[in-house]
């Protein structure tokens, strides 16, 4: 019976993976990696004179870098440039065009963080136990986050990345599109909650917005006549941006990150089942005091607060034809600006300044170990990696609420190793995984975690995660790749 239940659970998991076939997964290592390991018992040391109560010793990422890119149509070579900058050639955009679907999506997220408090190892004292019962700030770090996500139509890609010059005599049904970009600097306060049995760790973050862009279109279209002597534009849109604002004027926010565990009792056995790790990252509110808002076809509340349109206003298509000029106007050359000004006024783009609050892009995750294996017989080797002493299969679901991201499912197989013979490392974790969803459709990945004792740093872990191996190998054909690396040590 237990085995049957287990089989049903496995089938359910595979079913979920099939349902999310076109989706990518977020970095599962983020889930694992940021879980702190808090020593709950001090080492028995008696000092004279006795030291004051000390904060608990924790293991946490001293430094971490993470990049995730993905799309269901745009190759990694393209998305990489969107993330890092660079020039995208006309040949590249042309090759993408043949793969476009009716609805497409893409996105990337880059995060780099550093903990700067505490840097020095905390001294464990006898009084820790008393001190350890209080909730207190145990770490302070900083992060820089850049993210962008978009859903777009094929014709929107053609218009933006190719231009209407290639589509004379045709209508580009740009349709409905959604583009979102956000950049933030955060200060993260890690709080230990020793009294809680469920909450592993809690973070409070103060965020400073460095960039915010939003563009939404609805029913947009652009027709270019065969000889380009007229252009017809229609549709609604609105855009919001912090461009042009000074540093510190773009917005502030607060966010919370919480990791929890849940243990369900195994049916029939009376024993506790493997725990389920779940949580939320960066859930909060961002206040944007001054946004430049341009819109067409939408009405807004008269007060300048609020970032959602109040409703739609009637619109008509706008036809732009050649300016009719006299010989003198032609010579003067001012017909160009007149034509441009006429177009702007006919489009009736409404420009205004608004302020408002948005929910920060947050991540929800849940992870559970499906099963594990401890090989009974260990091969004897003098040196080297040896045989894994523990292997585990995990299932992870992650969702990030920005356009272009769908629920990701990741199935991973990890192996733990101890060194054989004299090695400079103390343990090694190796994991392969298959992900579906996220920004991407699917990807293969590999993660390694090497732990070693480093003089001056103590027990230190070095982590490297390569997501989308197929895209790293074939960046022009495959889409969705990422990389993460970090250093974890005792703070």
């Amino acid at each position, binding site marked *: 019976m237990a085995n049957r239940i287990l089989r049903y659970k496995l089938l359910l998991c595979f079913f979920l993976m099939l349902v999310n076939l076109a989706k990518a997964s977020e970095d599962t290592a983020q889930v694992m990696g940021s879980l702190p390991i808090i020593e709950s018992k001090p080492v028995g040391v008696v000092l004279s004179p006795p030291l004051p109560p000390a904060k608990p010793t924790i293991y946490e990422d001293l430094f971490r870098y993470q990049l995730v890119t993905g799309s269901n149509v745009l190759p990694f070579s393209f998305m990489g*440039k969107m993330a890092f900058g660079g020039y995208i050639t006309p040949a590249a955009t042309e090759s993408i065009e043949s793969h476009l679907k009716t609805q497409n999506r893409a996105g990337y997220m880059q995060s780099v963080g550093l903990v700067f408090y505490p840097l020095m190892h905390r001294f464990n004292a006898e009084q820790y136990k008393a001190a350890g019962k209080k909730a207190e700030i145990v770490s302070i770090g900083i992060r820089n986050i850049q993210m962008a996500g978009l859903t777009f139509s094929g014709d929107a890609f053609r218009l933006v990345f190719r231009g209407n*010059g290639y589509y004379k005599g045709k209508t580009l049904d740009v349709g409905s599109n959604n583009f979102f970009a956000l950049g933030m600097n955060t200060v993260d306060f890690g709080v230990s909650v020793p009294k809680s049995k469920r909450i592993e760790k809690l973070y409070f973050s103060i965020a400073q917005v460095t960039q915010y862009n939003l563009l939404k279109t609805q029913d947009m279209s652009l027709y270019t006549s065969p000889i380009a002597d007229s252009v017809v534009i229609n549709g609604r849109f609105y855009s919001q941006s912090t461009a042009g604002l000074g540093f510190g004027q773009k917005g502030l926010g607060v966010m919370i990150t919480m990791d929890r565990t849940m243990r369900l009792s195994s049916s029939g056995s009376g024993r506790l089942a493997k725990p389920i790790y779940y949580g939320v990252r960066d859930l909060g509110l961002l206040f944007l005091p001054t946004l430049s808002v341009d819109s067409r076809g939408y009405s807004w509340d008269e007060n300048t607060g609020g970032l959602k349109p109040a409703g739609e206003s009637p619109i008509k298509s706008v036809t732009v034809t050649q300016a009719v000029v006299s010989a003198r106007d032609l010579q003067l050359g001012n017909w160009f600006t007149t034509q441009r000004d006429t177009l702007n006024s006919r489009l009736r783009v409404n420009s205004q300044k608004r302020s408002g609050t948005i929910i920060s892009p947050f991540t929800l995750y849940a992870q559970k170990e499906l099963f594990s294996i401890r090989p009974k017989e260990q091969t004897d080797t003098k040196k080297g990696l040896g045989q894994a002493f523990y292997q585990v299969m995990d299932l992870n679901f992650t969702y990030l609420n920005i356009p272009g991201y769908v629920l990701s499912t990741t199935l991973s197989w990890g192996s733990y190793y101890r060194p054989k013979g004299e090695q400079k490392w103390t343990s090694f974790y190796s994991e392969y995984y298959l992900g579906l969803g996220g920004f991407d459709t699917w990807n293969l990945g590999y993660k390694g975690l090497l732990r070693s004792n480093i003089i001056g740093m103590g027990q230190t872990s070095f982590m490297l995660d390569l997501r989308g191996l197929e895209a790293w190998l074939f960046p022009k054909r495959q889409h969705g790749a990422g990389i993460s690396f970090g250093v974890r040590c005792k703070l």
Partner: protein
Amino acid sequence: MRKSQIFTLFLSVVLFFSACRREVSWDNRVAAPLFKSTLSLGQIDSKYLDHTTADSSYKLSYENLVYTYRMANVRAYDTGLTASFTLKRLKLTDRSIVQKITLGQINPLFKLLDGQTANIPEQNQGNLTPVDIDASAFFETATLDSGFLDISISNNLPVKVKLVIFELTNAGDNSEVAYDSFTNIPIGGKVTKRIDLKDKTVTKTLKGSIKQLVTEASSGPVLIDASKGVDLELTVSRLHPRYAVAAFPTQNVIDQNEGLTVFMGGAEVKYFKAKAGNLKIKLASTIQEDMTMLFEIPSATKGGKVLSSVVKLPAAPPNGVSTRDEFFDLTDYLIDFRGKDPDVKDTVNTFHQILVVRLDSSGRKVAIGLSDSIRIDYRMESLIPDYAIGYMGQSLNQSGDQKAPFDLFKGLNGDLKFKDFKVSLIVRNSIGAEGRIKIRSLAGENVFTKNSVKLSAMPLNNDILISAPPFKRDAFVESEIVLDGTNSNIKSFIENLPQMLDYNLDMETNPNGNVNLYKDFVFDNSKVDVIMKVEFPAEFSLNQFVLRDTQSVDWTAIAGLDRIKSAKMDVRIKNSFPLGAKLQLMLLDEKEQGIASLDIDPSNNVIEPGVVDARGYPIAPSETVFSIGIGRDKVDALKKAKFIAITTTLTGDGKTQKLYDNSSIGISTTVDFEYEVRYGK
């Protein structure tokens, strides 16, 4: 330490990622409509091109200015006067004071007999007690250049005064002011003596002494009144001090009423209306009294009002100078330059002006010396006529060898034959004086072929006489000399298609002198223009004819020009003119040097001529499509270009063509350009 070193390294990485602004770019190709226009000859000013109603063909009329003469000598040169005033013109008020010398003062004995009736014996008294005389009413002190002191003695004694010797001295230093004798003053009588005060210094405190007084005995008993005696009256008059501390009375220190002559550069002007000009008056005074200047030019009127003004100059501080500047705008004033009183003497270049400067007495005693003065500068400046009437004088202006552009054929070169044309040399005169022009030489130069054709014309062998127009602004008279094949080589002159005219001529005004009797006139815009006028019907034959034009370009209206990678303008031409054309476009830098040519595709492109009927009347336009492009390799040249040189080669069939009013060229353009989009910064 090691951990913190690693921390510092990672912190640098974090700051790098947070500070770095990554920009992504890609190319976008945009196609958009530009402009369309219809060019026809009807858009040209009908002054230059008019169509005939008979067959709707065109006739072209073109005037080219060759030479202009303006009268430079009619202007009022800056002129003015300076007047200064010194103490010599000052005077003090005539005043009188009376001092009494009583019988009691003559002989104290009479005080005892006061009120009694008695015989008064003959008296002979000497060196009576001097009497203080307060002359502060005259001045504090004065050293006089001239003046008089009248001493009057009135006899109020009951006896006859046989002799009075009187002395007047300054109380301070006992210097003598006056010394004189008076004889035989009857009872109740009065005798006056005048003392000359020239070079005398008089102070405010004087002493009057009767040196000797001789009276006759009374004829019988008389009432003795010790309070009566002789009255001494001192009167000063016509005082002109060299230095004085006194209360000066209100008086005019400058009083001018005269004509002022202005140099007009040789012209003799009767009337002058100012278009611009000003009058500046500068007053400077060391006098410690307020001054008032009344200034008037009765000759200058505006709207019926005479130019006049009253200017106040405050008193100067001790040892200081008081100044005042006044400015009068003479614009629109009509100035009569016929003199102060033209009914008496009618002259030229002279206007009537009145200047009065008055010292306003404050009653305060102030010090004035020989070093004190009032200086007045007044100047008429920058006087430019709206018009002037008079005799403008004789002048001879020799131009020497000069060049004038002939814009009719500017930028044109080629084989063009006109069927018919008419050329005139027109002298258009708006100066109100007679004149004459002698054309010494006139040649036309084609700058492309370097060919020069000298005009040989019989009518130009004689002087061209010029008469005066009526007195009205912008009115002119024209003298026209028609040049045709019978009296000149004008055909070869014109068919050389000159772009420059080389000329040498003399312009003379009033060659016969003042025959208009001062009725010449000139307005500010009066001139003599020598114009070459060409008229011809728009009917000609040509094989190939080149038009060149250079247009300035300003790309500043196009934002993001630096991101354009290539551009192409598609041009559609609908041509109903009976001529074809070929275009060449060259980009020029700020020095009009060639940078790069624009690519025209097809490269051998020709704008086809319109379809015409047998008589050349347009019946259907031809359509030509070509593109003007600039590739990626030439975009930099586009950004640097300040001008575009357009060379249009018109092609004909050599047959005579006529241009009709329904011929036109329709231009329709669209643009297709590659543009680099940048996002992220």
